């Protein structure tokens, strides 16, 4: 009797471990359009209304705990914001003059610029977030039925949040800018030098602006924004000028400069976001479509291998 129980217990453990390993291997090896990914999307479609309901029902609980945390940070934030307001006020005056000049130059040289006007923002509520430090993703309650497609940029009132990674009919998964698969072409404030913003390795909540020339200069607090560059082989998925974060410090190593960036968006407390969807045939839609057709790991897969990461960066930025 004892032997039978022991055998049954061990057999169950082995069965479950083998099943897990089979799932892992099959999922990791298949393309994002594969069967297991499809099952996952179908499951998300089914549970999305439940998640949505739970999200709304639990909002007071969430707000209560969030407000306790916010109170601790409020004083420091207020002082910082006061300084920021006075700095921005001065900056606004000079920027208005620059903006006028910039528009004139654009018209003069017919610069091909991707504007936000080409996008149709779809407002969505965040209904789920991974607790793991390894998955910087959130689930939202809008999907393909609302026009959301893979690789659509996602923003909120604070700045760039990420991009759509997987879409079900009434839900979608968004890779946050701190996800290891992300790469966004960006520039520092008013400078013309562009680099690529990627998550800082080993620091899941920080970003790193990389591939900058050695003589790049940046001061702490300067804004890092999406470059929106349009040039052969360097097309950006994101509209230009969306705030990504602020410069916190600089690093110089072996002739390359990189800049540490503190994300502008509070990625821990996302509630409402906007997905910038694009009309069929428009440039943003074509760009997203091209990216979606790239082989697994280069476009939007959450399982990008290290060797593929740079390709993903070039295409995704």
């Amino acid at each position, binding site marked *: 009797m004892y032997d039978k129980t022991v055998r049954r217990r061990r057999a169950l453990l082995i069965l479950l471990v083998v099943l897990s390993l089979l799932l892992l291997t099959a999922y990791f090896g298949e393309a994002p359009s594969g069967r297991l990914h499809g099952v996952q999307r179908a499951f998300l479609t089914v549970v999305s209304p439940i998640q949505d309901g739970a999200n709304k029902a639990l909002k007071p609980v969430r707000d209560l705990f969030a407000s306790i945390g916010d109170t601790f940070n409020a004083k420091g934030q207020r002082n910082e914001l006061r300084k920021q307001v006075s700095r921005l006020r001065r900056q606004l005056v000079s920027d208005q003059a620059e903006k006028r000049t910039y528009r004139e130059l654009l018209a003069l040289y017919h610069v091909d610029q991707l504007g936000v006007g080409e996008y149709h923002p779809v407002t969505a509520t965040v209904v789920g977030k*991974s607790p793991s430090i390894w998955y910087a993703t959130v689930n939202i309650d809008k999907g393909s039925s609302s026009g959301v497609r893979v690789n659509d940029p996602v923003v909120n009132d604070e700045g760039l949040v990420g991009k759509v990674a997987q879409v079900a009919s009434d839900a979608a998964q968004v890779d946050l800018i701190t996800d290891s698969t992300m790469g966004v072409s960006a520039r520092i404030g008013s400078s013309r030098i562009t680099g690529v913003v990627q998550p800082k390795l080993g620091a899941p909540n920080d970003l790193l602006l990389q591939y900058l020339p050695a003589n790049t200069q940046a001061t702490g607090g300067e804004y890092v924004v999406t470059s929106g560059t349009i040039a052969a082989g360097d097309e950006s998925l994101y509209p230009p000028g969306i705030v990504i974060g602020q410069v916190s410090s600089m690093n110089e190593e072996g002739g390359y400069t990189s800049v540490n960036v503190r994300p502008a968006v509070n990625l821990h407390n996302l509630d409402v976001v906007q997905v910038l969807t694009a009309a069929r045939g428009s440039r943003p839609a074509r760009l997203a479509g091209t990216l979606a057709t790239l082989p697994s790991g280069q476009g939007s897969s959450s399982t990008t291998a290290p060797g593929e990461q740079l390709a993903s960066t070039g295409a995704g930025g």
Partner: protein
Amino acid sequence: MSALGRVAALGVAVVFFQIGAVSEVPVFGVNVDLSPLLVVFVGLLCGSMIGALSGFAVGLLVDLALLQTLGVSSLIFTLIGYWSGRLRELRDPQAALTPLLVGAGATAVSLVGYSLVEFMLGVDAPVSLELLRQIVLGVVVNSVAALPMWAIVRRALEGALPEDPRRRRRRRAYTTGGLSPLSRG
């Protein structure tokens, strides 16, 4: 309702509560993760077989709901559930701090296990002090959440356990006068 039914209902409720509310509230920059705590406490109360089964099911649910790599959470939670079940079957620890220590252990195994699997799958993230800090903070924060979680799991499963350790202890005290047969002799 049977123990398995209660575990299933509790698993679904905890996973959705985790995804919908708990994950949205960072504590010292990390999130409380109730899933490993649920699995380890189910194992501690119900034994290794139900522990392993619930670990697999909760892991699968987490991976499906969050569109994570299928199988990673299932593998780690299966091992956690089995381990805690064996702990109950072999040692049956009764100390007041047991849930806290077991919860901390399960969280550490979960976080380190995730890290190892992710490294093996090729995620480009070297071991750094920041990563270690996140893991240590995660263990500390989850340890704080372990005691209330233990109370909830125990309350939810009360009466449906295959052999409640408390009931067994009471029975032993009743039949032996609270002493072991050796000391009585």
